[in-house]
């Protein structure tokens, strides 16, 4: 989706704030939030964690901190899965008589190690080949950022087959069959025009389905 998360090349986000002595977690709740998200992964069966993050309305996405987004998402998932209720979240207490949730084993999702190397497609491109990033504007999750769409690049490395992460609008993978991921070099001038440095470049890792022959 062409969301606010797809920030590459944007202006107007302000100066970079740098804290040399930054702790891992700025406040204890950040550590607890992080631990909860990591520990609860087996309870909530995500369709696509990143797509859910991207679906947070743009104004809220920008306002929220990293860990706030995670907690927002975990909470929404738990509610959606009927594992907790709004009242329980408010009080921090289980409702009387609420059944204890039982865990169901998660099915592997696209990108899991288990999915890789299973009936992989042969590579469509080879190292050194010139390619064009497709000009697509899907409403689901995609790993093809806006700033390279339609731009020409060169394959510099073939990393082998990986589960395809792009999804449809429901967050379901567009393809369950692994495909090759390549590092593609885009010249800075191809992306940003003649004012960019001639020798500078940006490298992205893109799947077969993001690329076309030229």
């Amino acid at each position, binding site marked *: 989706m062409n969301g606010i998360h797809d920030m590459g090349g944007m*202006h107007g*986000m302000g100066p*970079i704030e740098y804290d040399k002595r930054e702790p891992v977690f700025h406040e204890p709740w950040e550590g607890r939030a992080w631990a909860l998200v990591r520990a609860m992964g087996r309870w909530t069966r995500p369709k696509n964690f990143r797509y859910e993050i991207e679906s947070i309305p743009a104004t809220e996405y920008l306002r929220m901190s990293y860990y706030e987004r995670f907690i*927002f998402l975990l909470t929404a998932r738990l509610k959606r899965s009927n594992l907790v209720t709004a009242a329980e979240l408010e009080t*921090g207490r289980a409702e009387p008589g609420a059944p*204890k949730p039982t865990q169901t084993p998660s099915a592997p999702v696209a990108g899991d190690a288990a999915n890789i190397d299973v009936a992989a497609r042969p590579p469509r491109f080879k190292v050194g080949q010139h390619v064009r990033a497709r000009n697509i504007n899907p409403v689901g999750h995609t790993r093809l950022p806006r700033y390279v769409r339609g731009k020409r690049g060169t394959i510099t490395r073939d990393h082998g087959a990986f589960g395809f992460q792009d999804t449809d609008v429901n967050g379901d993978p567009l393809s369950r069959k692994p495909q090759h991921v390549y590092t593609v070099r885009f010249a800075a001038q191809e992306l940003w025009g003649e004012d960019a440095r001639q020798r500078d470049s940006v490298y992205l890792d893109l799947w077969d389905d993001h690329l076309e022959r030229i």
Partner: protein
Amino acid sequence: MEKSGKRPLDRREFLKGATVSTAALAPQTANAQEPHDHDHQVVPSDIALRVKALESLLIEKGMVDREALDAIVDTYETKIGPRNGARVVARAWVDAAYKKRLLTNATSAIAELGYGGAQGEHMVVLENGPKVHNLVVCTLCSCYPWPVLGLPPMWYKSAPYRSRAVIDPRGVLREFRLELPEDIEVRVWDSTADLRYLVLPERPPGTEGMTEDELAALVTRDSMVGIAKVTVPQGGSRL
């Protein structure tokens, strides 16, 4: 302290009790049954309180236990961090054969030192030098090589860095007080797939007699993302 006049039990006080002993709690609050719908409220008014409530609730429901959460926090605070990456860099500086393995198959070379796992399954190491400077970003989210660098710092996750690193890397580096020579080639690596990137910074001059441990102490997180060079500080090392 926040006060809520309409509630019989101050929520903060209640939660303080809840963290002391979750198991001992009996269902007692009347306001627990109040109809609340917070789906519209995207940002909680007090995130710390909500996280605490969520933790207590999930523990009470038997979905997670506190020790497991403590262990996760401890892992990311004390075990996984840029010191791991610094050891990789220092080894590459003193051992040419290791460096070669690192640059050709980073994942297995990093595993030789005992580092690996989530967000480090497919590593690529990029060598900085006098002619090429590499900079790592994730424009779409905040992908970062956890096993060698830990969790990403704020600036890496921030909109200003994510938006500008690809279009104006030299300007971004200038903000970090790194001025690159005109003739150096800048390569920006946008972590859009499952590969995770670690920069192998240049070994600074004047470190020829140093041991591997001493070298590792010089290597900063920032130098392994590409926003800084490794320097020999006056009077001690820094992270």
